[in-house]
Protein backbone atom coordinates (compact mmCIF):
# COMPACT_ATOMS: atom_id res chain seq x y z
CA UNK A 1 0.00 0.00 0.00
CA UNK A 2 1.44 3.25 -1.14
CA UNK A 3 -0.45 6.29 0.06
CA UNK A 4 0.56 8.39 -2.88
CA UNK A 5 -0.75 5.80 -5.28
CA UNK A 6 -4.00 5.48 -3.37
CA UNK A 7 -4.40 9.23 -3.39
CA UNK A 8 -3.83 9.40 -7.13
CA UNK A 9 -6.12 6.49 -7.72
CA UNK A 10 -8.80 8.09 -5.57
CA UNK A 11 -8.50 11.36 -7.47
CA UNK A 12 -8.64 9.59 -10.81
CA UNK A 13 -11.82 7.82 -9.80
CA UNK A 14 -13.63 11.07 -8.94
CA UNK A 15 -16.07 12.67 -11.30
CA UNK A 16 -14.21 15.97 -11.05
CA UNK A 17 -11.11 14.51 -12.69
CA UNK A 18 -13.09 12.93 -15.50
CA UNK A 19 -15.58 15.53 -16.61
CA UNK A 20 -15.49 16.09 -20.34
CA UNK A 21 -16.21 19.67 -21.41
CA UNK A 22 -19.40 18.49 -23.07
CA UNK A 23 -20.65 16.84 -19.90
CA UNK A 24 -19.87 19.98 -17.94
CA UNK A 25 -21.97 22.00 -20.38
CA UNK A 26 -24.86 19.56 -20.29
CA UNK A 27 -25.28 19.69 -16.52
CA UNK A 28 -26.65 23.25 -16.40
CA UNK A 29 -28.79 22.53 -19.44
CA UNK A 30 -30.41 19.60 -17.63
CA UNK A 31 -30.82 21.70 -14.50
CA UNK A 32 -32.55 24.29 -16.66
CA UNK A 33 -35.01 21.62 -17.81
CA UNK A 34 -35.70 20.73 -14.18
CA UNK A 35 -36.19 24.39 -13.34
CA UNK A 36 -38.60 24.85 -16.23
CA UNK A 37 -40.53 21.78 -15.18
CA UNK A 38 -40.66 22.48 -11.46
CA UNK A 39 -40.91 26.26 -11.24
CA UNK A 40 -42.36 27.26 -14.59
CA UNK A 41 -44.74 24.35 -14.97
CA UNK A 42 -43.33 23.37 -18.38
CA UNK A 43 -44.80 19.89 -18.93
CA UNK A 44 -43.39 18.79 -15.58
CA UNK A 45 -44.52 15.18 -15.94
CA UNK A 46 -42.07 14.76 -18.78
CA UNK A 47 -39.42 17.44 -18.40
CA UNK A 48 -38.55 16.51 -14.81
CA UNK A 49 -37.79 12.85 -15.62
CA UNK A 50 -36.07 13.86 -18.86
CA UNK A 51 -33.95 16.48 -17.13
CA UNK A 52 -32.98 14.14 -14.33
CA UNK A 53 -32.23 11.39 -16.84
CA UNK A 54 -30.02 13.90 -18.66
CA UNK A 55 -28.06 14.58 -15.49
CA UNK A 56 -27.52 10.87 -14.98
CA UNK A 57 -26.52 10.33 -18.60
CA UNK A 58 -23.79 12.96 -18.40
CA UNK A 59 -22.04 11.59 -15.34
CA UNK A 60 -18.46 10.66 -16.21
CA UNK A 61 -17.27 7.05 -15.81
CA UNK A 62 -20.67 5.70 -14.71
CA UNK A 63 -22.04 5.34 -18.27
CA UNK A 64 -25.61 5.18 -16.98
CA UNK A 65 -26.98 5.84 -20.45
CA UNK A 66 -24.88 3.09 -22.04
CA UNK A 67 -26.30 -0.28 -23.04
CA UNK A 68 -25.53 -1.84 -19.62
CA UNK A 69 -26.41 1.23 -17.60
CA UNK A 70 -29.66 1.85 -15.70
CA UNK A 71 -31.08 4.19 -18.35
CA UNK A 72 -29.72 2.28 -21.30
CA UNK A 73 -31.51 -0.85 -20.10
CA UNK A 74 -34.79 1.04 -19.83
CA UNK A 75 -34.21 2.61 -23.25
CA UNK A 76 -33.75 -0.76 -24.87
CA UNK A 77 -36.74 -2.13 -23.02
CA UNK A 78 -39.24 0.39 -24.28
CA UNK A 79 -38.03 3.23 -26.47
CA UNK A 80 -36.03 1.57 -29.21
CA UNK A 81 -38.91 -0.80 -29.92
CA UNK A 82 -41.58 1.88 -29.59
CA UNK A 83 -43.41 0.17 -26.72
CA UNK A 84 -43.41 2.98 -24.13
CA UNK A 85 -44.77 5.76 -26.36
CA UNK A 86 -47.53 3.42 -27.49
CA UNK A 87 -48.46 2.55 -23.90
CA UNK A 88 -48.52 6.26 -23.06
CA UNK A 89 -50.79 6.79 -26.04
CA UNK A 90 -53.02 4.00 -24.73
CA UNK A 91 -53.34 5.91 -21.48
CA UNK A 92 -53.91 9.18 -23.30
CA UNK A 93 -56.73 7.55 -25.23
CA UNK A 94 -58.25 6.34 -21.98
CA UNK A 95 -58.24 9.92 -20.70
CA UNK A 96 -59.46 11.73 -23.82
CA UNK A 97 -63.05 12.73 -24.43
CA UNK A 98 -63.77 12.82 -28.16
CA UNK A 99 -67.27 14.15 -27.53
CA UNK A 100 -66.49 17.72 -28.67
CA UNK A 101 -65.15 16.41 -31.96
CA UNK A 102 -68.20 14.22 -32.53
CA UNK A 103 -70.42 17.19 -31.73
CA UNK A 104 -68.85 19.24 -34.51
CA UNK A 105 -67.15 16.87 -36.96
CA UNK A 106 -65.97 19.32 -39.59
CA UNK A 107 -63.60 20.99 -37.13
CA UNK A 108 -61.50 17.85 -37.61
CA UNK A 109 -60.24 19.45 -40.81
CA UNK A 110 -58.53 22.14 -38.76
CA UNK A 111 -56.55 19.36 -37.11
CA UNK A 112 -55.49 18.29 -40.60
CA UNK A 113 -54.38 21.75 -41.71
CA UNK A 114 -52.15 22.20 -38.69
CA UNK A 115 -50.03 19.24 -39.82
CA UNK A 116 -48.76 21.48 -42.59
CA UNK A 117 -46.17 22.62 -40.07
CA UNK A 118 -44.74 19.10 -39.97
CA UNK A 119 -44.00 18.92 -43.65
CA UNK A 120 -42.79 22.50 -44.03
CA UNK A 121 -40.33 21.83 -41.26
CA UNK A 122 -39.24 18.61 -42.88
CA UNK A 123 -38.36 20.58 -46.01
CA UNK A 124 -36.75 23.21 -43.82
CA UNK A 125 -34.55 20.59 -42.22
CA UNK A 126 -33.47 19.25 -45.58
CA UNK A 127 -32.73 22.78 -46.78
CA UNK A 128 -30.70 23.56 -43.69
CA UNK A 129 -28.75 20.36 -44.13
CA UNK A 130 -28.17 21.31 -47.77
CA UNK A 131 -27.09 24.90 -47.17
CA UNK A 132 -25.04 24.56 -43.99
CA UNK A 133 -21.92 22.43 -44.00
CA UNK A 134 -21.94 21.81 -40.26
CA UNK A 135 -25.48 20.43 -40.19
CA UNK A 136 -26.26 17.08 -41.65
CA UNK A 137 -29.77 15.60 -41.63
CA UNK A 138 -30.83 12.62 -43.72
CA UNK A 139 -34.43 12.09 -44.75
CA UNK A 140 -35.32 10.13 -41.63
CA UNK A 141 -33.81 12.82 -39.43
CA UNK A 142 -35.79 15.49 -41.26
CA UNK A 143 -39.00 13.54 -40.84
CA UNK A 144 -38.40 13.09 -37.13
CA UNK A 145 -37.67 16.79 -36.75
CA UNK A 146 -40.78 17.72 -38.69
CA UNK A 147 -42.97 15.70 -36.37
CA UNK A 148 -42.14 18.16 -33.57
CA UNK A 149 -44.79 20.25 -35.33
CA UNK A 150 -47.27 17.54 -34.42
CA UNK A 151 -47.08 18.90 -30.86
CA UNK A 152 -47.52 15.43 -29.48
CA UNK A 153 -44.87 13.94 -27.25
CA UNK A 154 -45.52 10.22 -27.66
CA UNK A 155 -45.80 10.53 -31.45
CA UNK A 156 -42.53 12.46 -31.63
CA UNK A 157 -40.71 9.99 -29.38
CA UNK A 158 -42.13 7.02 -31.27
CA UNK A 159 -41.03 8.35 -34.64
CA UNK A 160 -37.66 9.66 -33.51
CA UNK A 161 -36.92 6.34 -31.81
CA UNK A 162 -37.45 4.62 -35.15
CA UNK A 163 -35.99 7.14 -37.61
CA UNK A 164 -33.43 9.21 -35.73
CA UNK A 165 -32.52 7.75 -32.33
CA UNK A 166 -29.46 9.99 -31.99
CA UNK A 167 -31.64 13.08 -32.25
CA UNK A 168 -34.29 11.73 -29.87
CA UNK A 169 -33.16 13.84 -26.93
CA UNK A 170 -33.25 17.13 -28.81
CA UNK A 171 -36.52 16.28 -30.53
CA UNK A 172 -38.30 15.30 -27.33
CA UNK A 173 -37.10 18.41 -25.54
CA UNK A 174 -38.13 20.65 -28.41
CA UNK A 175 -41.54 19.01 -28.57
CA UNK A 176 -42.31 19.26 -24.86
CA UNK A 177 -40.77 22.71 -24.42
CA UNK A 178 -42.72 24.25 -27.28
CA UNK A 179 -45.88 22.51 -26.07
CA UNK A 180 -45.33 24.27 -22.77
CA UNK A 181 -44.60 27.52 -24.62
CA UNK A 182 -47.79 27.39 -26.66
CA UNK A 183 -49.28 30.26 -24.57
CA UNK A 184 -46.38 32.42 -25.77
CA UNK A 185 -45.88 31.15 -29.32
CA UNK A 186 -49.45 31.02 -30.53
CA UNK A 187 -51.30 34.23 -29.51
CA UNK A 188 -49.26 36.68 -31.65
CA UNK A 189 -49.76 34.49 -34.72
CA UNK A 190 -53.45 34.12 -33.95
CA UNK A 191 -53.88 37.87 -33.58
CA UNK A 192 -51.86 38.64 -36.70
CA UNK A 193 -53.96 36.45 -38.93
CA UNK A 194 -57.43 37.35 -37.65
CA UNK A 195 -59.53 40.50 -37.41
CA UNK A 196 -61.19 41.64 -34.21
CA UNK A 197 -64.55 40.73 -35.75
CA UNK A 198 -63.40 37.21 -36.52
CA UNK A 199 -62.06 36.71 -33.02
CA UNK A 200 -65.45 37.68 -31.62
CA UNK A 201 -67.40 35.11 -33.62
CA UNK A 202 -69.70 33.14 -31.37
CA UNK A 203 -70.13 29.52 -32.34
CA UNK A 204 -73.37 27.56 -32.13
CA UNK A 205 -73.66 25.43 -29.08
CA UNK A 206 -72.41 21.85 -29.43
CA UNK A 207 -75.05 19.21 -30.03
CA UNK A 208 -75.42 16.46 -27.46
CA UNK A 209 -73.53 13.31 -28.36
CA UNK A 210 -74.98 9.86 -27.76
CA UNK A 211 -73.16 7.22 -25.73
CA UNK A 212 -73.31 4.79 -28.65
CA UNK A 213 -71.52 7.32 -30.86
CA UNK A 214 -68.77 7.61 -28.28
CA UNK A 215 -68.43 3.83 -28.09
CA UNK A 216 -68.31 3.41 -31.86
CA UNK A 217 -65.95 6.33 -32.39
CA UNK A 218 -62.69 4.51 -31.61
CA UNK A 219 -63.65 1.74 -34.01
CA UNK A 220 -64.62 4.28 -36.65
CA UNK A 221 -61.29 6.03 -36.41
CA UNK A 222 -59.45 2.74 -36.54
CA UNK A 223 -61.44 1.74 -39.61
CA UNK A 224 -60.62 4.98 -41.42
CA UNK A 225 -56.98 4.54 -40.51
CA UNK A 226 -56.86 0.95 -41.68
CA UNK A 227 -58.47 1.83 -44.98
CA UNK A 228 -56.22 4.78 -45.79
CA UNK A 229 -53.02 4.66 -43.70
CA UNK A 230 -52.28 1.24 -42.28
CA UNK A 231 -48.79 2.43 -41.35
CA UNK A 232 -50.30 4.75 -38.76
CA UNK A 233 -52.32 2.04 -37.07
CA UNK A 234 -49.91 1.27 -34.21
CA UNK A 235 -50.19 4.85 -32.96
CA UNK A 236 -53.84 5.40 -33.81
CA UNK A 237 -54.71 1.90 -32.61
CA UNK A 238 -53.12 2.46 -29.22
CA UNK A 239 -55.05 5.71 -28.64
CA UNK A 240 -58.26 4.17 -29.80
CA UNK A 241 -57.89 1.03 -27.73
CA UNK A 242 -57.46 3.20 -24.66
CA UNK A 243 -60.48 5.23 -25.65
CA UNK A 244 -62.59 2.12 -26.20
CA UNK A 245 -61.67 0.88 -22.72
CA UNK A 246 -62.87 4.22 -21.37
CA UNK A 247 -66.07 4.57 -23.34
CA UNK A 248 -67.37 1.03 -23.54
CA UNK A 249 -68.29 0.98 -19.86
CA UNK A 250 -67.68 -2.75 -19.46
CA UNK A 251 -64.06 -2.73 -18.29
CA UNK A 252 -63.73 0.19 -15.93
CA UNK A 253 -60.94 -1.42 -13.97
CA UNK A 254 -58.81 -1.70 -17.10
CA UNK A 255 -59.64 1.88 -18.11
CA UNK A 256 -58.60 3.14 -14.71
CA UNK A 257 -55.39 1.12 -14.85
CA UNK A 258 -54.59 2.66 -18.23
CA UNK A 259 -55.34 6.18 -16.96
CA UNK A 260 -53.32 5.80 -13.79
CA UNK A 261 -50.84 3.11 -12.89
CA UNK A 262 -49.89 2.14 -16.43
CA UNK A 263 -49.36 5.66 -17.77
CA UNK A 264 -47.66 6.87 -14.58
CA UNK A 265 -45.17 4.04 -14.40
CA UNK A 266 -44.42 4.23 -18.11
CA UNK A 267 -44.04 8.02 -17.93
CA UNK A 268 -41.35 7.67 -15.27
CA UNK A 269 -39.49 5.07 -17.30
CA UNK A 270 -39.94 6.83 -20.63
CA UNK A 271 -38.82 10.19 -19.27
CA UNK A 272 -35.65 8.76 -17.75
CA UNK A 273 -34.86 6.81 -20.90
CA UNK A 274 -35.39 9.82 -23.16
CA UNK A 275 -33.08 11.74 -20.83
CA UNK A 276 -30.36 9.21 -21.61
CA UNK A 277 -30.24 10.76 -25.08
CA UNK A 278 -29.08 14.04 -23.60
CA UNK A 279 -25.59 12.59 -23.29
CA UNK A 280 -23.21 15.30 -24.42
CA UNK A 281 -21.76 13.41 -27.36
CA UNK A 282 -25.20 13.15 -28.91
CA UNK A 283 -26.84 16.35 -27.76
CA UNK A 284 -24.15 18.99 -28.08
CA UNK A 285 -24.02 19.67 -31.78
CA UNK A 286 -25.08 22.21 -34.31
CA UNK A 287 -27.88 19.81 -35.19
CA UNK A 288 -29.52 20.40 -31.83
CA UNK A 289 -29.63 24.14 -32.41
CA UNK A 290 -31.07 23.46 -35.83
CA UNK A 291 -33.72 21.21 -34.28
CA UNK A 292 -34.73 23.81 -31.71
CA UNK A 293 -35.00 26.46 -34.43
CA UNK A 294 -36.92 24.20 -36.80
CA UNK A 295 -39.26 23.03 -34.04
CA UNK A 296 -40.27 26.59 -33.34
CA UNK A 297 -40.97 27.16 -37.04
CA UNK A 298 -43.05 24.00 -37.07
CA UNK A 299 -45.28 25.18 -34.23
CA UNK A 300 -45.69 28.59 -35.83
CA UNK A 301 -46.59 27.27 -39.26
CA UNK A 302 -48.95 24.68 -37.79
CA UNK A 303 -50.76 27.37 -35.85
CA UNK A 304 -51.02 29.62 -38.88
CA UNK A 305 -52.27 26.82 -41.11
CA UNK A 306 -55.03 25.94 -38.71
CA UNK A 307 -56.19 29.53 -38.40
CA UNK A 308 -56.08 30.11 -42.14
CA UNK A 309 -58.07 27.00 -42.97
CA UNK A 310 -60.71 28.10 -40.48
CA UNK A 311 -60.98 31.41 -42.32
CA UNK A 312 -61.21 29.57 -45.63
CA UNK A 313 -63.96 27.31 -44.27
CA UNK A 314 -65.92 30.40 -43.25
CA UNK A 315 -66.08 31.37 -46.91
CA UNK A 316 -68.07 28.26 -47.77
CA UNK A 317 -69.64 27.19 -44.50
CA UNK A 318 -73.06 28.12 -43.18
CA UNK A 319 -72.37 28.15 -39.44
CA UNK A 320 -69.42 30.47 -38.86
CA UNK A 321 -66.28 29.11 -37.24
CA UNK A 322 -64.21 31.30 -34.97
CA UNK A 323 -60.83 31.07 -36.70
CA UNK A 324 -59.02 31.10 -33.37
CA UNK A 325 -59.97 27.48 -32.82
CA UNK A 326 -57.88 26.56 -35.86
CA UNK A 327 -54.80 27.17 -33.72
CA UNK A 328 -55.82 24.27 -31.48
CA UNK A 329 -55.34 21.93 -34.45
CA UNK A 330 -51.65 21.55 -33.64
CA UNK A 331 -52.73 19.36 -30.70
CA UNK A 332 -50.62 20.12 -27.58
CA UNK A 333 -53.70 18.86 -25.75
CA UNK A 334 -55.17 20.60 -23.79
CA UNK A 335 -52.85 23.60 -23.64
CA UNK A 336 -53.59 24.87 -27.15
CA UNK A 337 -57.34 24.71 -26.54
CA UNK A 338 -56.90 26.72 -23.38
CA UNK A 339 -54.90 29.33 -25.25
CA UNK A 340 -57.72 29.62 -27.77
CA UNK A 341 -60.18 30.08 -24.94
CA UNK A 342 -58.03 32.76 -23.36
CA UNK A 343 -57.51 34.76 -26.55
CA UNK A 344 -61.23 34.46 -27.24
CA UNK A 345 -62.12 35.81 -23.82
CA UNK A 346 -59.79 38.78 -24.35
CA UNK A 347 -61.94 39.81 -27.28
CA UNK A 348 -65.31 38.91 -25.85
CA UNK A 349 -65.56 38.02 -22.16
CA UNK A 350 -68.71 35.99 -22.84
CA UNK A 351 -67.22 33.85 -25.59
CA UNK A 352 -66.15 30.49 -24.19
CA UNK A 353 -64.32 28.67 -26.98
CA UNK A 354 -62.74 25.89 -24.94
CA UNK A 355 -65.11 23.09 -25.91
CA UNK A 356 -65.16 24.22 -29.54
CA UNK A 357 -61.37 24.16 -29.57
CA UNK A 358 -61.24 20.66 -28.09
CA UNK A 359 -62.53 19.26 -31.41
CA UNK A 360 -59.60 20.39 -33.58
CA UNK A 361 -57.33 19.78 -30.60
CA UNK A 362 -58.00 16.05 -30.42
CA UNK A 363 -58.27 15.81 -34.20
CA UNK A 364 -54.74 17.20 -34.28
CA UNK A 365 -53.55 14.19 -32.29
CA UNK A 366 -55.00 11.89 -34.93
CA UNK A 367 -53.64 14.09 -37.72
CA UNK A 368 -50.08 13.92 -36.47
CA UNK A 369 -50.31 10.20 -35.82
CA UNK A 370 -51.37 9.75 -39.43
CA UNK A 371 -48.57 12.02 -40.63
CA UNK A 372 -46.13 9.96 -38.55
CA UNK A 373 -47.44 6.82 -40.20
CA UNK A 374 -46.84 8.27 -43.66
CA UNK A 375 -43.35 9.42 -42.73
CA UNK A 376 -42.52 6.06 -41.21
CA UNK A 377 -43.65 4.26 -44.34
CA UNK A 378 -41.92 6.50 -46.85
CA UNK A 379 -38.57 7.16 -45.23
CA UNK A 380 -37.73 3.79 -43.81
Amino acid at each position, binding site marked *: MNFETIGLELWQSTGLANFSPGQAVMMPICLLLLYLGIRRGFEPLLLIPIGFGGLLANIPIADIGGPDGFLGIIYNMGISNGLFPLLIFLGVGAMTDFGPLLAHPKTALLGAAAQFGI*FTTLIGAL*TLSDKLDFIDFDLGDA*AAIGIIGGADGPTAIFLAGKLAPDLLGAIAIAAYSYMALVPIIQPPIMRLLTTQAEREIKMVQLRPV*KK*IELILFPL*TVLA*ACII*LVPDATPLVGAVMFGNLLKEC*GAVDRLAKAAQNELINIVTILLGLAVGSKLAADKFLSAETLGILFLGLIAFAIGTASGVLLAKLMNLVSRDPINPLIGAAGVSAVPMAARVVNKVGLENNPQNFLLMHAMGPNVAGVLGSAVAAGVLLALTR
Partner: protein
Amino acid sequence: MIVEGFRLMAVGMLTVFAFLTLLVGLMNGSALFFEKFADRFPEPEPDGSAKARTGNTGQDEEIALVLALAQARRQGQRV
Protein backbone atom coordinates in the same frame (compact mmCIF):
# COMPACT_ATOMS: atom_id res chain seq x y z
CA MET B 1 -33.31 15.42 -51.47
CA ILE B 2 -35.33 18.59 -50.96
CA VAL B 3 -37.44 17.47 -53.91
CA GLU B 4 -38.08 14.31 -51.96
CA GLY B 5 -39.27 16.55 -49.12
CA PHE B 6 -41.88 18.14 -51.35
CA ARG B 7 -43.01 14.71 -52.46
CA LEU B 8 -43.42 13.72 -48.81
CA MET B 9 -45.37 16.91 -48.18
CA ALA B 10 -47.73 16.21 -51.06
CA VAL B 11 -48.30 12.59 -50.07
CA GLY B 12 -48.48 13.40 -46.39
CA MET B 13 -50.91 16.31 -46.49
CA LEU B 14 -53.08 14.47 -49.00
CA THR B 15 -53.23 11.50 -46.71
CA VAL B 16 -53.90 13.51 -43.57
CA PHE B 17 -56.73 15.42 -45.26
CA ALA B 18 -58.12 12.29 -46.87
CA PHE B 19 -58.12 10.55 -43.49
CA LEU B 20 -59.77 13.34 -41.56
CA THR B 21 -62.24 14.07 -44.34
CA LEU B 22 -63.24 10.43 -44.36
CA LEU B 23 -63.57 10.63 -40.61
CA VAL B 24 -65.80 13.71 -40.86
CA GLY B 25 -68.01 11.79 -43.25
CA LEU B 26 -68.17 8.79 -40.97
CA MET B 27 -68.93 10.94 -37.93
CA ASN B 28 -71.69 12.79 -39.76
CA GLY B 29 -73.08 9.51 -41.02
CA SER B 30 -72.99 8.01 -37.55
CA ALA B 31 -74.72 11.07 -36.08
CA LEU B 32 -77.48 10.91 -38.70
CA PHE B 33 -77.92 7.18 -38.28
CA PHE B 34 -78.27 7.31 -34.52
CA GLU B 35 -80.51 10.36 -34.77
CA LYS B 36 -82.81 8.46 -37.12
CA PHE B 37 -82.85 5.24 -35.14
CA ALA B 38 -82.64 6.88 -31.73
CA ASP B 39 -85.53 4.74 -30.49
CA ARG B 40 -83.60 1.56 -31.18
CA PHE B 41 -80.54 2.73 -29.25
CA PRO B 42 -81.90 4.08 -25.99
CA GLU B 43 -79.44 6.20 -24.04
CA PRO B 44 -78.45 5.03 -20.58
CA GLU B 45 -79.84 7.20 -17.80
CA PRO B 46 -77.47 9.98 -16.72
CA ASP B 47 -77.31 8.57 -13.20
CA GLY B 48 -74.99 5.87 -14.39
CA SER B 49 -77.45 3.01 -14.25
CA ALA B 50 -75.86 1.92 -17.51
CA LYS B 51 -73.01 0.53 -15.52
CA ALA B 52 -75.30 -1.64 -13.48
CA ARG B 53 -76.40 -3.26 -16.72
CA THR B 54 -73.06 -4.78 -17.64
CA GLY B 55 -72.97 -8.34 -16.43
CA ASN B 56 -69.53 -7.91 -14.99
CA THR B 57 -70.13 -5.35 -12.32
CA GLY B 58 -73.39 -6.76 -11.17
CA GLN B 59 -71.96 -10.19 -10.86
CA ASP B 60 -68.94 -9.06 -8.92
CA GLU B 61 -71.14 -7.21 -6.51
CA GLU B 62 -73.33 -10.21 -5.95
CA ILE B 63 -70.36 -12.45 -5.32
CA ALA B 64 -68.77 -9.90 -3.04
CA LEU B 65 -71.97 -9.71 -1.07
CA VAL B 66 -72.20 -13.44 -0.68
CA LEU B 67 -68.56 -13.73 0.28
CA ALA B 68 -68.97 -11.00 2.85
CA LEU B 69 -71.99 -12.77 4.27
CA ALA B 70 -70.05 -16.01 4.40
CA GLN B 71 -67.14 -14.35 6.14
CA ALA B 72 -69.44 -12.75 8.68
CA ARG B 73 -71.11 -16.05 9.30
CA ARG B 74 -67.78 -17.78 9.80
CA GLN B 75 -66.59 -15.18 12.22
CA GLY B 76 -69.84 -14.96 14.05
CA GLN B 77 -70.06 -18.71 14.61
CA ARG B 78 -66.57 -18.92 15.99
CA VAL B 79 -66.43 -20.54 19.40
